[in-house]
């Protein structure tokens, strides 16, 4: 199965939030009371009931003017996904499209994915004691449709298609934009399945890691300590058996002691 990619071109985004709304509609995530944080960004962050969000940001252009920037923030669907590595129950898993699916029924609310994710995507829902995140509308893409956010986008900032095709489009667009424009997503964590075309340097954008990677602590835990502990456990089981049959148990009896007969039992 060919991998699918959601391509997001920031230069075409008008911050209309149709994607945000379409996501809520398709995934049945009614809004809750929010608070005004002095910008159009609402709610203030990703939430268990808000799986994608337009981040609004004002940046000085250096000439006394202001650039108003929008970023569609949602799960990046990493190929080497830290959340899938740590998930103990298999609630988070890779799909045949390369995206990261989430099965809420399997989630045990351990929050390990929240700590592991380099993009701060999974959110904890205390009411359900489960996490929630974008699953790239698996129910839709598995039926040949595009994700709800892509379907709703009126400007073409969001596109969906085969990975190769989307990457080609992304690089073409970045070249067109010129300057600091770049493609973000294909060069780390094994390649993400949401790809950005960034008109500015990645460091300009709020809450966007420049070099996201699976944290070393997670690699130490899952790749080193897990196999090592199995090895140690197996080693000591086998070692004890060999000790018993080769070296033999310790002789703690004594002939001058009546009660020692009991000792061997």
């Amino acid at each position, binding site marked *: 199965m060919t991998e699918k990619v959601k391509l997001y071109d920031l230069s075409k985004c008008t911050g209309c939030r149709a994607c945000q709304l379409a996501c809520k509609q398709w995934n049945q995530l009614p809004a809750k009371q929010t608070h005004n944080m002095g910008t159009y960004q609402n709610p203030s962050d990703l939430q268990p009931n808000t799986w994608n969000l337009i981040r609004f940001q004002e940046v000085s252009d250096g000439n006394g003017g202001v650039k108003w920037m929008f970023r569609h923030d949602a799960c990046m669907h990493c190929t080497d996904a830290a959340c899938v590595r*740590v998930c*103990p*129950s*298999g609630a988070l898993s890779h799909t045949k499209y390369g995206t990261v699916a989430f099965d809420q029924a*399997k989630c*045990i*609310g*351990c*929050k*390990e994915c*929240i*700590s*592991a994710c380099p993009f*701060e995507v999974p959110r*904890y829902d205390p009411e359900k004691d489960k996490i929630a995140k974008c699953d790239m509308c698996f129910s839709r893409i598995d039926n040949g449709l595009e994700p709800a956010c892509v379907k709703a986008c009126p400007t073409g900032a969001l596109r969906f298609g085969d990975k190769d095709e989307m990457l080609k489009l992304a690089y073409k667009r970045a070249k067109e934009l010129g300057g600091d424009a770049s493609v973000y997503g294909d060069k780390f964590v094994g390649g993400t399945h949401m790809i950005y075309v960034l008109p500015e340097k990645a460091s300009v954008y709020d809450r966007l890691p420049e070099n996201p990677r699976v*944290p070393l*602590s*997670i690699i*130490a*835990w899952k790749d080193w*300590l*897990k196999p*090592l*502990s*199995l090895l*140690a*456990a197996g*080693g*000591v*089981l086998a070692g*004890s058996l060999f*000790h*018993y049959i080769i*070296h033999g*148990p*310790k*002789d*703690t*009896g*004594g002939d*001058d*002691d*009546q*009660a*020692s007969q*009991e*000792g*061997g*039992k």
Partner: protein
Amino acid sequence: MIPKKGMIKVSDAFERIVHWCLAISCIVLMISGLGMMFHAFNFLAIPVGGLKNLKLIHNFTGLIFIPSLLFAILVWWKEAGVLDLPDDFEWIKCAGGYLWHVENPPETGKYNVGQKAFFLAVAGFGIIMIISGLIMWFPLSLPTGLVRWMYSLHALGFFVIFPFFFVHLYLGTIGVPGSAPAVFTGYVTRSWCNKQCPKWLRKMEETGKLEVYGEEKAVSEH
């Protein structure tokens, strides 16, 4: 396992209770933890109705483990937490005679270096397990960079504690016959004491503190 006349008391009721609280909570924690750590062991959750229940069992057993470990440290640190040099060094050099044939292994007190190492590993890594475990239970109020390392520490704790636990189980049962009654009735044979803790036995006899089953307690002397 009824003690016989002439057997020697090596542990009191409180020690035995602490031992079993720690042992049972530790075993439940290891099994439930294993069920969550490896997908291949997820089946361990079936008898309790799923991983979520296994998580709850793990977390609340942790709450029993905490006081058990603290009492264990209080009860045994003096006898098992301090090396007795230079004799213990001699013991280390020949591994106490446990791994290869040693004609006369150095005499030990109440606990040998292996047992002391087990105590120190469980005490030290047990505390690490408690701290990292509590942080893993409530991770959202703490910096992510810190929380991430707690998972590694927790795994490291299992890596260290399990081998010690299993060797302890082996040597407490079939590896050193006659040991197990120490944690059930509290009484072991005199010959066992002569092999396992001769220095302690002599000291207890000299100070008149030795309690022998079926004999008047000799404590009235002091």
